[in-house]
């Protein structure tokens, strides 16, 4: 029994929507960064699904799979920078709440 491609794409869309919703609704910097990771992983899942759709037993289309590896790398780098900034901010403000970012007028 194999999972149909459509299911992968639907799951990716749900993950992406969850990430966007988390980004828009939560005000905690760490949750927001986690929501961004969720969006990147939705892209990963959809890349892998695309990879499977375009591959046959004779010819394998690896573009999507390789893209996924690079996205994982980028996500890690982005998390590293993001969390370092969260720490810097916590030292200054003793909070990671995004509403505390009010030095610069909106």
């Amino acid at each position: 029994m194999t999972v149909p491609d459509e299911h992968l794409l639907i799951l990716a869309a749900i993950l992406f929507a969850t990430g966007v919703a988390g980004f828009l609704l939560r005000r905690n910097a760490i949750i927001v960064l986690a929501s961004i990771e969720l969006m990147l992983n939705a892209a990963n899942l959809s890349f892998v699904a695309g990879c499977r759709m375009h591959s046959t037993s004779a010819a394998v289309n690896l573009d999507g799979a390789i893209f996924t590896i690079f996205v994982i790398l980028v996500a890690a780098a982005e998390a590293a920078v993001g969390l370092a900034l969260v720490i810097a901010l916590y030292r200054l403000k003793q909070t990671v709440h995004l509403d505390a970012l009010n030095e610069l007028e909106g």
Partner: protein
Amino acid sequence: MDRYLADLGLIAPELVLTLLSLVVLVWDLVTKGRDSRQVAYLSLAGLGVVAYLLLGQWGDLAATGGKAETVAFGMVTIDAFGTFFKLFTVGSLAVVILFVLADRRERKHGIGEYYFLLLGAGIGVFFMVSTNNLLLLMLGLELLSLASYSLAGFHKSERRSAEASMKYVIFGGLSAGIMLYGISLLYGLTGTIDLNEMGIADGSGWPVGLAAQFAQDPVPVAVAIVLILAGFAYKVSVVPFHFWTPDVYEGAPTPVTTFLAVASKAAGFAVLLRFVGALFLVEGVDSTVAAYGERIGLLIAILAAVTMTLGNLSALRQTSMKRMLAYSSIAHAGYVLMGLAAMTPAGFSAAMFYLAAYYFMNLGAFGFLLYFEGVNKSEDIDALKGMGWKAPVVSIVMVAFLVSLTGLPPTVGFYGKLLLFYEGVDAGLGWLVLIAALNSVVSLFYYFRIAKALFLSEPAEREAEPQPFFTGFLALLGVGTILFGIYTEPLQNWSETGTDSLGIAEASE
């Protein structure tokens, strides 16, 4: 093997820049950050080598009509379009490094990473402007973004700097997520991550061309393309992805703001032009795809109108010069988008010309801001009152930049705007040109508040300590702004060569 070595020759500028950034990093570690000025001089010398290599490459490319050559299994595309932006990127990196050296509020020791991060961002720009492959494009864009996040928060113990970079990283992450999801959908639909293959594939087997997708069901592919465009729109701060711009520009150290406003934004536009060109305007494009391209053009035209209006109206009520320049850069993004919205090769080269003009006048304007931050310890426009008499050369040069930013003759900004307006009317976007013209009038008010503060007030009590080196440097940029406004031929030729190398054609009616 020979082929491989020849390939390496083509990406020599990138290789040298990468090597330079590593040498800079190690040098800083070895000297334990005792004198960061040495690191800056080393970076400048290295950038000189890169510029020399790029000029040689430009010569070769221009001789053959700027034809594209692909390197590294088609990942990197070396063409006149990319080299045009690389040359300006190297120039603005050098200017930004000089700004860091001249910044009186910056430490002189232990800031070697500053230069390393700037060069790293430069490598990102180099790769993102010279590829038709979405993977390399994404990696270049992310390298630029990651370096920019760190640079914006360089003074991490300063509240404003830390806040700016936090906002930048969060909105940057969102746009990266949106863009990558868009790319994954586009890959899922077409089976390729190469823009050229998407544009011209015939639709039998994979890669499936865009034409077949649009004919079958336009909704998914349109969604994917709009998601990707949203990612680019963030980089060039087009409404509605501009929220971060004023805050990040205000909070970041001024040399970094200069880099973000000039090099990073222009690189974003380069990617935008290449993406739209490769998908919708490439020679031999399917008529269905071209028809959807026109709709995308209309969408861009609407965004351009909203962007320039919002940028200009918000700039009007700013009291901080840094924030005002941030909104002005949003407005300028709107003007450049006009050239893209025209969806013609001539419109693209007008956009390129305007970006070149934008380098000159914005580097100058931010340099002026930095100069007076050092003198006044304040970014307020009011603090400039009467200072024109105390620092006459810098202030007169600033008036030239302001004239150019407004788009009045005889400056490069005027000619750039003229080209954009002409191409806009030519493409049947008369309404957009009208809005842009009205916007230019609005921008006159806030730009000339600075000139008014400088010269039409009583001379200030304070003295401005002369900084001959910095002054001479700004004067040089000012001369460039006026000279290229009078002799427009060279810049115009360069941007036309650049556009030609994209291989895009007039849409056949």
